């Protein structure tokens, strides 16, 4: 009997001693451990992961799914360049933003905030990893990671003003709740300066930044702080000595032909991959005509009448800097496609019809925009009759640019320029104008205008020649600094319209309140129900509110921006 008891005890003790340690250890199947990453392969994997956050998609997404869009189309909606588009009911939270009913809980703010921090910290992850590897030369990767971090922090800074800085030390120590006690320009400058000093002047892969790109970004950082001299020096260096040039044809910037060409300084590299296009522009999926030539989703991101008006030119081929809103480019708002409509016959900058899709003009090779039939917004909605163009691929280029999402939405493969050379020229012009170097300002603005002039013009669908009366000429001279400043600023809008920059230009020029107030009044001439729906722009809107959920999760580290 005792033997039997002993036998049982034996099983028990064997189970205990022989198996338990090994038995209760389970590996993380399919995962990369911290140790596994500590080598060149690991660094490159995480670095690619950091680049990946440029496309606006993060794990554990926060807030509204469209708020993350990397091409900042949302920011154009908040400026005088674009309406939300579609029907008023669609994306109500964005409607409230555009109509100036801002609230700290709005999911669009939170979404953007979240994806910017994902980018900052994915870059921090690379830096932290490199710091943890004793051997090997990772200076190239480090410079790229710091460039990316600089870029994301720049985005953060320009949107929210008073922001926390999460350093790579903070990352390593998982100290993510840092106070937002002002601007972080110094840190942004340091990252770009490091990138200037350590990046190669050319890269094998076009999507990686060069030292020239870093200079341009550092120049932009100075520009945003009105450090005109420093900005001038760097931007002029890029213009004078850098590898960039304007593409011969303006529109090629937004077509397959010009993708990754000499005008690209730094771009989000989108592609239409097979299956679900994870590397397409997911945040811009709503911004195709609906209904329309390709019946895609969803009729958002409609240019404003105000923007179209800005392309009017005088008989001298120059923009109507002060008077462009005294007359409207003819609008077909409220006119059914079946009813007659006579397009505007006055003179226009040829960039107009590559930026704003309007009735009667060819729409990216898909035939003439027929007006209301391609517009999802009804006349009862406030988004007007125009269609976006730069973000929409051209007929015949679907193969390379038309990606697909999980419910059949379009994920465009058209790159988004965070910065292109025309932007550099105009920033250099601006810095020059501010430092009273009117000659440089004039030369740069005219270089941009000259390209507009010599580009091929939009052709009429019936083959009768130019689609409209296009007239654009260089400035003869800038009489004084005020005129130069005004001309440079206006040129930015014309050249870079619908590219996500306008809102931040208005803010840093400190004219947002005036411009937006005028815009609401002007826009309401053609879209009569827009004005009554909108509330007044308030000064506090010059920076975004810190998202409510961000404050709640920060354990008291974050404080709200003034006025919210």
């Amino acid at each position, binding site marked *: 009997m005792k033997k039997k008891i002993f036998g*049982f005890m034996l099983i028990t003790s064997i*189970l205990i001693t022989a198996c338990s340690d090994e038995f209760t250890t389970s590996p993380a199947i399919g*995962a990369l451990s911290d140790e596994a990453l500590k080598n060149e392969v690991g660094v490159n994997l995480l670095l690619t992961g950091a680049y990946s956050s440029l496309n606006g998609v993060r794990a554990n997404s926060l807030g509204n799914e469209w708020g993350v869009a990397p091409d900042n189309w949302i920011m154009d909606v908040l400026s005088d360049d674009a309406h939300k588009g579609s029907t008023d009911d669609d994306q109500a939270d964005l409607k409230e933003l555009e109509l100036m009913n801002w609230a700290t809980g709005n999911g669009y703010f939170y979404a953007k905030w979240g994806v910017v921090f994902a980018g900052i910290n994915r870059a921090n992850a690379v830096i932290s990893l490199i710091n943890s590897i004793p051997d090997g030369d990772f200076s190239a990767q480090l410079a790229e990671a710091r460039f990316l971090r600089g870029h994301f922090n720049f985005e953060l800074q320009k949107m929210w003003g008073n922001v926390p800085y999460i350093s790579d030390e903070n990352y390593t120590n998982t100290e993510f709740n840092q106070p937002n006690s002002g601007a972080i320009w110094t840190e942004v400058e340091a990252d770009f300066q490091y990138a200037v000093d350590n990046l190669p002047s050319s890269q094998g892969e076009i999507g990686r930044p060069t030292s020239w790109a870093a200079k341009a970004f550092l120049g932009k950082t100075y520009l945003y702080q009105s450090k005109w001299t420093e900005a001038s020096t760097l931007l002029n260096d890029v213009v004078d000595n850098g590898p960039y040039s304007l593409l011969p044809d303006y529109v090629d910037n937004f077509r397959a032909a010009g993708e990754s060409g000499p005008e690209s300084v730094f771009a989000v590299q989108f592609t239409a991959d097979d299956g679900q296009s994870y590397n397409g522009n997911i945040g811009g999926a709503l911004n195709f005509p609906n209904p329309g030539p390709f019946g895609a989703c969803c009729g958002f991101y409609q240019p404003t009448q105000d923007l179209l008006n800005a392309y009017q030119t005088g008989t001298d081929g120059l923009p109507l800097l002060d008077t462009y809103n005294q007359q409207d480019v003819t609008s077909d708002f409220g006119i059914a496609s079946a009813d007659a409509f006579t397009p505007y016959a006055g003179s226009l900058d040829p960039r107009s019809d590559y930026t704003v899709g309007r009735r009667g003009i060819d729409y990216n090779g898909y035939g003439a925009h027929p007006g209301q039939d391609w517009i999802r917004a009804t006349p009862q909605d406030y988004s007007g009759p125009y269609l976006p163009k730069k973000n929409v691929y051209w007929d015949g280029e679907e193969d390379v640019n038309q990606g697909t999402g999980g419910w059949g939405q379009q994920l465009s493969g058209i790159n988004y320029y965070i910065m292109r050379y025309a932007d550099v020229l105009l920033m250099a012009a601006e810095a020059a104008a501010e430092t009273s170097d009117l000659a440089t300002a004039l030369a740069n603005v005219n270089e941009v205008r000259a390209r507009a002039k010599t580009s091929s013009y939009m052709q009429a669908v019936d083959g009768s020649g130019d689609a409209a009366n296009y007239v654009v000429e260089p400035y003869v001279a800038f009489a004084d600094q005020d005129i130069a400043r005004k001309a440079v600023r206006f040129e930015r809008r014309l050249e870079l319209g619908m590219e996500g920059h306008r809102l931040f230009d208005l803010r840093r020029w400190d004219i947002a309140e005036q411009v937006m107030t005028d815009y609401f009044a002007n826009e309401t001439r053609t879209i009569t129900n827009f004005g009554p729906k909108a509330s007044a722009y308030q000064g506090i809107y010059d920076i975004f509110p810190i998202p409510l959920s961000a404050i709640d*999760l920060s354990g008291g580290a974050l404080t709200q921006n003034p006025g919210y």
Partner: protein
Amino acid sequence: MIQFIHCFKWHLQRGSLLLMLLAFCASGYAQVSGTIVDDKSGEPLIGASILVQGTSTGVISGVTGEFSLDAKQGDVLKISYIGYADKTVTIGAETNLLIRLTEGLSFDEIVVVGYASQTRGDITGSVASVDMSEALKAPVVNAAEALQGRVTGVTVVVSGRPGDAPKINVRGFGTSNNTNPLYIIDGVQTDDPNALNNLSTSDIQQMNVLKDAAAAIYGARASNGVVIITTKGGGYNMARPEIAFSAFTGSSNISNVPGLLNTQQHADMIWQSQLNDGGTPEHPQYGNGSTPLLPSSIQGYTRVVSYAPTTFAPAGQFSAATNGNGTNWVDAITQSAPVSSVNFSIANGEKNGKYYLSAGYLKRDGIIQQTGFERGNVKMNSEFKLGNKLKVGEHINVAFTNTKLGVNEAIENASRMTPLLPVLDDDGEYTGVAGPGLSNTRNPAAQLYRSRNDYNKRLSIFGDVYMSYQIIEGLTAKTVLAGGFNTFNSRYFTALDPEHGEPISTNTLAEQNQTAYNWNWTNTLNYQKSIGDHYINAIGGVEALKDQGKGTGISRQGYLFEDPNFYLLSNGSGAPNIDYVYSGYNTLFSIFGSVNYSFQDKYFATVTLRQDESSRFIGDNKRDIFPSLSAGWDVTKEAFFPQGSVLSRLKLKGSWGQLGNQTLPANNPTVNISNLNEALANYSFNGSSISTGALLSQVGNPDLKWETSVSTNFGIELGLLNNKLIINAEFYNIDTKDLITRDFSLISSTAIDAGAPLVNLGDIRNRGVDLELGYADKTAGGFGYDISFYVSRYKNEVISLINDAPVAGRQDLRNGAVTRTEVGGEMSYFYGRNITGLDDNGRFVYEDVNNDGVVNDDDRTNIGSPHPDFTYGINLKANYKGFDASVFFTGSQGNEIYNYNKVFTDFGLFFNGNRSTRVLDAWTPTNTDTDVPALTGSYPLEEASANTYFIEDGSYFRLKNLQVGYTLPDAISERANIQSVRIYIQGSNLLTITNYSGYDPEVISYDNLSLGVDRQIYPLSKGITFGTNIRF
């Protein structure tokens, strides 16, 4: 598994399993058999326990009440059965006994409480048994539903969606993780309540809930309580096979539909909104007059006529006539839902073997179209004696289920869809919002119809094989190898939606395949001995457990035919997409021991110690010890206790113990995990070819340790009037320490986009009382009745939190979280602005909580509690002659609900969409005595953010079950050669009294940091079923 085989082989090689194959010698005991019946009706009593006093020999009566065991003349049998008074029988010459039990209270009933059994009277912990015969009167799909209102201290929230497992909480809210109790189904351990979907409830014999330190024998998995389910078996030495058949059928309907506007009201609402906004009313559907004009057909109605490119029909090609008051979209997506079930079982046994075999089929449609649950299952339990000392047996359960989930957002869309739109257009096709002024809601009827070929099929096999060997009298060794195997495969087809305003351009097939295996191997040694007045029952054991799973999800687009016969991944034209892949496992290794001691059946004590070692933790945190102590005193048995007084029973008991929780939503929570990720980490450096990248997906916490609950329980059991009236009261305090949850404040919004680490967040205290009252009697005329009342109350308090920072609840709601958990408060209170009234424009005025003269986010405050003052259940039973009736009420009092659905139905978020009838009372300059804000087309977002407008009283009182049955007189049954026939009619959820304005006040919470938030819930149904139970 390899690990297990490795260990197994190792033991085999060393012959240590020899024990299990040992020979044995015969003993001199005789076989005693008999039948247990109700003394009045003569009905056999299934599941009564028969124990040879002073020994560990005991059996449970089979489906005809029969039993058989080894005993000798002079032995005393103790027979007990829930609902009947205990009885003792001394064995004489007769070895085939007919034992009649009288209704009353049992304290000798055998209750399976852990790795072994105890008699009820001996229990010193908090153990509740479910009266299964009563609970299963309702057409229950998932056995856990039977706990609702029948076990005090256990909160059960039952979803209306067929196939959904109920949400169970034992004694307040301790953990923010998985709150599911551990289920022990025979030998199988699982904390997945869905596992109970695979079990036919008619196969269940006993269901016991361990609520306090009594659960400590399950150590690291016990802190949410333990539910022990024992299934039926056959009996030894049965005279003939016993066959039982039961069936029910019936149907149910939606029980409560919140009011929505009809077309005229909808049009008026649009007009009023525009007037309030200072505009001139106009609408593409309702014209531009001073009052809206209802169109006879939808203006600008269109639909897609061709794809690639997607092209809508020109105006006028299609038409859709509107109908009078418009469409009631909730009606359009709900249905009268049939339910039917049949079960068949056979049980038999002879001298050395017994078995129970059952087969069943159940189909329950949902009240929302295209939802439902279907199950076919087979169960086989058997046991064999190899001589007198060795028993081998098995339980095996095979179930096939299919759940049709429909479309989650259908009910929300039915609330938002404009009533103007008819369900079908003039050509009989589904309508959509492609026309102007119709908002952007998808047609929920079309959505549901298109989900008709979707399925979620699961094959589940679980069970155990066991062997027990009586080494010496009183000492038994038992080994149990239990396991489960689950395969799940699902198909979802996203069909084209040509009527929608945002038509998708391609269809998609998504398939998921998952397998899960788990096994546990338990070896125990049990010793029972009576020496004079002393009785000892000790058990010791070791246990190893492994859970593993693997799954993939793949989708592909571009199907030429929308016909289920083509729904194979190979038939798509797009590139296939791997949506997810996972693989992993976790293990647990434990050593445990427990000693029950009693003296003179008067004083009781139990000591339990368990050590668990979990693969989820590392280093010193891997292993932890969970002790518990309990004691009881049956005062009744004392000499000084006055016999024949009003007080017929008094027992006091108390317990203390530590329980653990290591059930986490991660297998490897202690380490940082980075992954390659196609969707989130790859990048195309040159705008075409794609480079592989990686990202940190999960932040690890090397310091993570067990969550432990320190549970203290005091109970008093009172019997009065000869135990006709019983009162059981228990008072408890549970301190949950080192609560495990994801720390979203560490990985906050300013962090990397990795999953937040699991941390030991803080300490929570739950304090409460569980009370049970029962009165049962039978009149001389044969009228028997039974009233029982259960009530429980708890108070929840957060004692400490990491960094003392408040924690927000679910983040996926529009405008942010609405719940908050903070030190000093309750878990998950509602947090937002307090509305004090409406201003001169009919907009909300909020309280300036901090008195700084500005109303902003800093003025958010505690605006309500999801915790009830108490919950209760009331059972009334009566029987007279062949008739029986029972009524079961359940309810909750004093809790509040955050009615999140109002975001969509009460505000102009989707301006052209529908609204709740509440807005008929919206503020206007002439209707200022209201709390509904003025209608507007552009709502201030704060109004739809967390505030008191959404808080409603969630109290309810519900008639959950009403049943009337009739058992045919024996004369009739016998003529048909049938032992008994009972027929019944039963009604569920026939009546609910509540002030809550949503679909159902029984709200299933998203997680424990977001309690009481009502969003997209499946509406409640009420129904009638007819059924029969026949025994041959």
